[in-house]
């Protein structure tokens, strides 16, 4: 990159929290129209670096230069006024306010001292049109929008600076909550923005999209700059090696050998509820069954139905050979079923409680009855899941995503389940911890557990599963053997429409 093209430069940025240094003199630059990807394990300092740029943290050392002028931001509003927009990992939208109110939050246009709602809505509509996003009206309440649309609103909000045209857009894991087709829409939007001369700093764990989108990749590790490379000059292996500092020879542990799949642990015949129909499913010990499908196809609903959280209302189900259709999670747990939920923070952990309390949550809540006694030895259990924590007293909220997930898994293992259901097992988990979780899952299957994995990351699903069931519109659209290609899966997942199915009776509820 030539120096004349540099629009934004961060130089030698350091930052400590409570004496712990999280950034060690990191430098980064960005050209107009460039998508610059920032990758690294959780805790590598990506988000902190971006928060420094966005004025949320004041750096201890280092400079930020935008268009040749040095900047020192002490409040997010200043960074935004200078043309730097940031989209946070967690949504920063108010669900009960309208799109326009969210977009202009903190800088509502006024006329004679009063908020000029009309101008606000007109400008929002204008911005949405500029981005080529139809279908969002400024007066819609954010709670009524699907997640992907909310993401768009976040982008509009980040770009809608009134003082200066937006120059830089920082996106921190924007596709984490999105399904594949929604992510594709977002990618298209990012490309359109870059084509208009916006510089995009893009943080993601999904390396495939990093390679699809970016012109350059910067790798951070332990708060230090490792390397910045042109995307076309590198490949996934090199980047992963730079991220973890070691070779990840095989991404996925070997699959089950023939004969390893054992007894039937769970069966469903003709299972259905408000959003599922005609589910026939068999889970065997020693086998990892993958569930693929588009967002809204019923993947998560299926896992929740098996776990009794959103029970089947029709059909027959057996668990461990006995007839049982769990009507509550408590019954499912008693029967030896465990569910690692998609939303770790809201459904998996008591964030302000210690690692110990979290790991013992299930065994304390559901005392053993007709099930082997709970694992008493917590330390061994935490070692088993290879948890990296400061101690058993550390609060779950301070762990990285990967370690939080390990605590969730430990929580279930303490209850000695026979059937383990995973919904998005590695969402928001860094590469190193991902591999550890994959290995753990395979080990558990090898020890005789029946495992079911729901994942929207197809490589993970293909890498982990001994067979893959594809869902579409609340039904199982087909089954594929181990090692099926992504194309096969997508073909089944998208093979919808009335022609492929017997007529579906009109159901009153739509899916939101």
């Amino acid at each position, binding site marked *: 990159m030539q120096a004349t093209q540099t629009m934004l430069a961060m130089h030698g940025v350091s930052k400590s929290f409570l004496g712990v240094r999280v950034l060690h003199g990191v430098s980064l630059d960005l050209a107009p129209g460039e998508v610059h990807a920032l990758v690294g394990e959780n805790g590598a300092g990506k988000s902190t670096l971006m928060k420094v740029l966005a004025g*949320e943290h004041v750096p201890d050392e280092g400079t930020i230069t935008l268009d040749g002028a040095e900047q020192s931001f002490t*409040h*997010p*509003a200043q960074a*935004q006024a200078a043309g730097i927009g940031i989209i*946070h990992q967690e*949504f*920063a*939208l*108010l*669900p*009960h*306010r309208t799109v326009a*109110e969210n977009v202009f*939050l*903190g*800088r*509502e246009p*006024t006329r004679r*001292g*009063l*908020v000029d709602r009309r101008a606000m809505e007109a400008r929002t509509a204008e911005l949405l049109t500029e981005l080529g996003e139809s*279908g969002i009206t400024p007066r*819609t*309440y954010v*709670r*009524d*929008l*699907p997640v992907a649309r909310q993401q768009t609103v976040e982008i509009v*909000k980040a770009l809608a600076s009134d003082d200066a045209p937006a120059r830089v857009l920082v996106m921190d894991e924007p596709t984490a909550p999105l399904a594949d087709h929604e992510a594709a829409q977002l990618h298209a939007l990012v490309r359109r923005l870059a084509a208009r001369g916006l510089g995009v700093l893009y943080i993601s764990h999904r390396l495939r999209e990093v390679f699809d989108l970016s012109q350059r990749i910067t790798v951070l590790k332990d708060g230090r700059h490792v390397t910045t490379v042109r995307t076309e000059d590198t490949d996934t292996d090199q980047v992963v090696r730079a991220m973890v500092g070691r070779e990840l020879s095989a991404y996925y542990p070997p699959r089950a050998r023939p004969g390893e799949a054992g007894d039937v642990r769970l069966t469903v015949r003709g299972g259905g509820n408000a959003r599922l129909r005609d589910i026939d499913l068999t889970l065997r010990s020693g086998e990892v069954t993958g569930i693929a499908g588009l967002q809204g196809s019923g993947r998560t609903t299926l896992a*929740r139905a098996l776990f009794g959280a*959103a029970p089947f209302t029709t059909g027959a189900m057996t668990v461990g050979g006995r007839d049982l259709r769990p009507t509550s999670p408590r019954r499912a747990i008693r029967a030896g079923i465990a569910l690692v939920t998609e939303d770790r923070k809201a459904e998996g952990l008591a964030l302000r409680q210690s690692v110990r309390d979290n790991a013992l949550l299930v065994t304390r809540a559901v005392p053993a009855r007709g099930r082997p006694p709970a694992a008493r030895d917590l330390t061994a259990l935490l070692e088993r899941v290879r948890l990296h924590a400061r101690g058993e007293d550390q609060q779950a909220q301070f762990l990285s995503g990967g370690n939080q997930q390990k605590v969730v898994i430990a929580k279930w293992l303490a209850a000695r389940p026979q059937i383990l259901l995973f919904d998005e097992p590695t969402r928001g988990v860094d590469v190193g911890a991902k591999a550890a979780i994959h290995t753990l899952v395979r080990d558990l299957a090898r020890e005789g557990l029946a495992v079911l994995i729901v994942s929207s990351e197809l490589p993970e699903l293909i890498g982990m599963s001994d067979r893959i069931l594809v869902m579409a519109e609340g039904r199982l659209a087909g089954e594929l053997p181990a090692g099926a290609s992504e194309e096969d899966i997508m073909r089944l997942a998208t093979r*919808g*429409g*009335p*022609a492929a199915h017997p*007529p579906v*009776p*009109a159901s009153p509820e*739509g*899916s*939101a």
Partner: protein
Amino acid sequence: MTGTAVAPPTVAKSAPPRRTRLADPAVGVWLAAAAVTAAGWIVVAARGGDFLTLANVVGILQNCVALGLVAVGQTAVILTGSLDLSVAYLISLGTLVAATTMEDGSVVTAVLAVLALSAAVGLANGLVVTGLKVNAFIATLGTAFILRGWIEDNYTGPAGKVPASFQHLGYDRMGPVPVSLFLLAAVAAALWFVTRRTRFGHHLYATGGDEHAARLSGVRTRRTVVAAHVLCSLCVGAAALFLAARLGAGAPWAGTEARYDLESIAAVVLGGTALAGGRGGVAGTLGGVLVLAVLDSVFNQLGVDPFFKNVVRGVVIIAAVALYARRGTGRPA
């Protein structure tokens, strides 16, 4: 349906679910007030009474004034996700300060003194909640204790005297309408205007909706919460002035006897404002106040014993909030 030919698979994303106006608590509570009034009219008429006399309606509205003023202020605080439990003692102290100042000073001085006192208490509440990061429940409860101590130490009973000129506020009417109702209307209109039409109002909602998100969007959330507390206390000061005019003197029990602290929170919640903040508004709160006042009036006319009266009030409040919770569950899992 099943009989028709292959339907075109073009049905795009369903439009956002249309929310009827009825589902909006601010509308619902006014309908509830109308329903309670109708029910009261029927019940009272069945006993041979007449509920909707001019005198009775005016009485109901007059009874709304004090609680209405407090609840409107409380709305501003609750919208930010905070709470004020010190309002009852602030009212008591306000009436005492007003009456004693008026006894040997001018009315204007007294009004200013009460408003200054209120603003100071609100400022203190706000600063303790935002600066010391004490939970609002505890912070304002602490303020309530402090005010109570002050009152008990300095006043043994009713004190001061409100001149006839100021008692006009409590007793005068313009035609059939009590003057005090204009005070409530003015304060409520002002608050409604502030919450709906100003940037500060938008920031109130944002702070209560998600403080972190609001801060990251450049909203000065602390300042917003402090201002909301000051605003609330000023409304409480207005209520104290009204009650002083009504009582003709200051009284240590002026605010506590009617339990304006919990009563105002009940009215706010009944009006559809979320206790966690971020949703609701002044219009709903006024509806909530009206529902409580109409219920009161019905029970008084029927001569129902106070125990049963409170049971019904409790049931109404719980039922209302349960109803809102059902509506507010957002998207299905």
